[in-house]
């Protein structure tokens, strides 16, 4: 069971990474990068590291994503 969940999460994480690299819309790319952090935090939790999982979920998928979105908003303001 654990192996199946881990493999599914790993595949989701890989897909998220590819989308983050190659998608044309930057908003989608930023959200995909947040998805990678989210799956990584679930994998940490399954590997019995709840301390690391908490940090990854709060900082990786929460704060970083929103800061990227703020900066993207700023770049659009400047260019358009």
């Amino acid at each position, binding site marked *: 069971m654990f192996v199946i969940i881990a493999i599914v999460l790993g595949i989701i994480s890989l897909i998220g990474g590819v989308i983050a690299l190659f998608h044309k819309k930057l908003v989608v790319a930023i959200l995909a990068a947040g998805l990678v952090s989210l799956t990584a935090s679930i994998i940490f939790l399954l590997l019995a590291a709840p301390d690391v999982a908490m940090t990854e979920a709060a900082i990786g998928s929460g*704060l970083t994503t929103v800061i990227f979105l703020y900066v993207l908003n700023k770049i659009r303001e400047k260019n358009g």
Partner: protein
Amino acid sequence: MVKNTLILLLTLGIGLIMYDVYEDFKFQESLPLLGDYYARNAASETGSANLVTAVVVTYRGFDTLGEVSILFLTASIISFMFKYKEEHATKKEYRPASELLISSTQVFTPIMLIVGIYIFANGHLSPGGGFQGGAVIASAFLLMLLANPGMHLSHKIISRVESISGIGFVLAGVAGLVYAGGFLDNTVLSKGEFGHLLSAGLIPIIYIFIGLKVGAELSNIVSTMSHLPKENN
């Protein structure tokens, strides 16, 4: 063409190194020497039920002080680079947030603050600690900023909280140097009863300082980034 060949060679080289690592990998049946020492003695030496906290705050406490200073440096550099100018405050008009976001913020912000405080105050008993609790507190402030885009966190309060907790952390370390075995030794206070809230000597106090410090710094970063000044070019 040359570029593609180089990329191919680099990929093959990295693949070779990784294959070598994979070949040599053996699953370890026993803990390494240092980990074995921590697993055997940390609970009795520090009185902390959470082994990770015992290592992070006492055995590797000096490294934690370094991490906290790096975070402080990052926060101050961001505030310095994106200095908020007062004259933009009146000019900039924000689109109001959606009703759903505003209502859910009113419900969730107090809960998130309490969860954050719980995480760092119980760092020596349950998973989590200063960094995690501070990040949760910063997320609560982030939600407030998203719901009221014009809001400003008071820089005076943030800087006071940040500096007082930083000084408190260092003073707790120095107290260990004077009254116990060494810098950041937690046995200045009594170890208390194992597994209770008031136990593990100085660890809860140090983690409360770290939590407040990290929360203030991350909130400051988020608040600065949400009010990025307009560039004139």
